[in-house]
């Protein structure tokens, strides 16, 4: 049955207003910048804050405190109980809910086996690696077969290489989990890889939601565009011409009318020392305001009308002898530009 949540939390000058619907077996990622209210939302869902009205079919959790809600939570730094073994940690929720010790241990051991840590059953949390601790935390959250699994930045505490491996493992476990899952993260990659649907939260409100594919292709806010790495503008289309709100005009390949979002990847942008020749191109002058070296490309930040990000090869950087303050010509094919209604 679908889980419906209405979260209303008012705190000082911050208001969270979030409606969520999660299907059984679905993984919803709550993505947003720091301070957007992601963790507040998770705590309200868990019953650690008041203001979380939750309905699953006929049952409502509105007035239930955390310990009465059928939930499992994986916390950012896992919060494994340091004085208990991994097995006791996993068995804790079962014991708290009245399962006999022997039976709880059997279930907990099975849980550890599923995350590949059966041989660490007697280990104390401090002897586990970050990835192992994360898996114990997952097993602990899942041991009671909760209806709602809440994951608070489950990969944030891991180093980059471990994160890659743990992320794919986590994805596998989430796929097998039949309940409702909400993943809170500020890492777009986590959301893209792990979630069926992404809800983007900014300043306590939903600004966009959709499948990862939709979000990547059609960002609706600067934050999302920045996350997915696209140049992003608002404008008004008239045929094949879009007048941008922030100044400048772009020529597009497919005609459109009215208010639109305009996106194109930085890799579609070319830079020249002088005005290039050739027709179906957008060209304009811009000044280099920043240069950032990435793995295989260099990202150039250009101020102009419009301002634009360009990814160019290291060879081009050398050829142009780029320096901040240089004036260059920006060139962009109309066919690289994607527009969609606002």
């Amino acid at each position, binding site marked *: 049955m679908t889980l419906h949540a209405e979260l209303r939390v008012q705190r000082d000058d911050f208001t969270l207003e979030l409606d969520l619907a999660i299907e059984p077996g679905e993984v919803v990622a709550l993505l947003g910048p720091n301070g957007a209210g992601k963790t507040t939302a998770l705590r309200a869902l*868990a*019953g*650690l804050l008041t203001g979380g009205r939750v309905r699953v079919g006929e049952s409502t959790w509105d007035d239930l*405190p*955390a*310990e*009465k*809600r059928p*939930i*499992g*939570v994986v*916390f950012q730094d896992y*919060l494994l*109980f*340091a*004085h*208990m073994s991994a097995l006791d940690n996993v068995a*804790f*929720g079962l014991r*708290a*809910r009245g399962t006999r010790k022997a039976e709880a241990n059997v279930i907990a051991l099975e849980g550890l086996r599923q995350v590949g840590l059966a041989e660490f059953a007697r280990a104390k949390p401090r002897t586990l690696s970050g990835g192992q601790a994360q898996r114990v935390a997952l097993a*602990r*959250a899942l041991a*009671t077969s909760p209806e709602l699994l*809440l994951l608070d930045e489950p990969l944030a505490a891991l180093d980059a290489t471990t994160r890659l491996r743990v992320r794919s493992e986590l994805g596998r476990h989430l796929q097998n989990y039949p309940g409702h899952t909400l993943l809170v993260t500020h890492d777009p990659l986590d959301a893209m890889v792990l979630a069926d649907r992404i809800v983007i939260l900014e300043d306590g409100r939903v600004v966009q939601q959709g499948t990862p594919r939709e979000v990547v292709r059609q960002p609706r806010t600067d934050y999302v565009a920045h996350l997915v790495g696209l140049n992003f503008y608002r404008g008004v289309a008239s045929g094949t011409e879009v007048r941008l709100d922030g100044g400048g005009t772009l020529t597009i390949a497919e005609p459109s009318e009215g208010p639109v979002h305009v996106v194109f990847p930085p890799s579609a942008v070319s830079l020249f020392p002088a005005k290039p020749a050739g027709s179906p191109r957008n060209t304009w002058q811009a000044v280099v305001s920043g240069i950032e070296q990435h793995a295989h490309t260099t990202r150039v930040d250009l101020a102009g009308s419009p301002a634009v990000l360009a990814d160019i090869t290291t060879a081009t950087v050398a050829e142009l002898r780029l320096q901040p303050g240089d004036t260059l010509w920006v060139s962009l094919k109309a066919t690289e530009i994607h527009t969609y209604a606002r």
Partner: protein
Amino acid sequence: MRSRLPVVLVLPAVAGLAFLLVPLAGLLVETPWATLPSQLFSAEVGQALQLSLICASLATIVCLVLGVPLAWLLARSDLPGRGLLRALVTVPLVLPPVVGGVALLLVLGRRGLVGQYLDQWFGVSLPFTTTGVVLAEAFVAMPFLVISVEGALRAADPRYEEAAATLGASRWLTFRRVTLPGIMPGVVAGTVLCWARALGEFGATITFAGNFPGRTTTMPLAVYLALETDPDAAIVLSIVLLLVSVAVLAGLRDKWIRA
């Protein structure tokens, strides 16, 4: 030589250590070692020592049963006037113990606010009893426990308690299985302080519980009275108290801190 200790810390530290240890050394130097064994195994000393250990331990148990929940209340609840309560809890620390003893008499004594009813209704009289010793010691020693447990609670991460709640644990279960084990070092430190304070308690005990051998004469009382007539005996008694308490505390420390 990267880890050379700064002189500004080492000098006062050594001075502090000397300040604490030299009086003890003085006691040891003055000890009439020849008569020590005979004193040690005399009936009175044995009786006083036994009574001291029992009363201090019972007082510590009373402090644990009442003090740990009190510390929890001070650290975790949002009850109004908590700051004032916290200050009031420490009052027995500042109060001269003799005054504490008088205060206990005024409340629990035969004509005390509560004591008169205990006497009338139940025939219970607390002064001049071993129970009275335990109460007096608990009164004086409890703040040590409460303060150190409260400190540990405030330093402990309350999110572990939230984690336990999301796993379905009631607050009581959470307290027993998550909070308490997490603050164990603080509880042990507080217990040790509390026990040590109770063991050395003199003023409140003699004022509230009086002095009667086998019933209320604990070691510090015996030491004080011995000092009146036989200073050597007083030193021997002090040494006995010192050795026993050091042995117990060292034993406890090893058992608990390493666990």
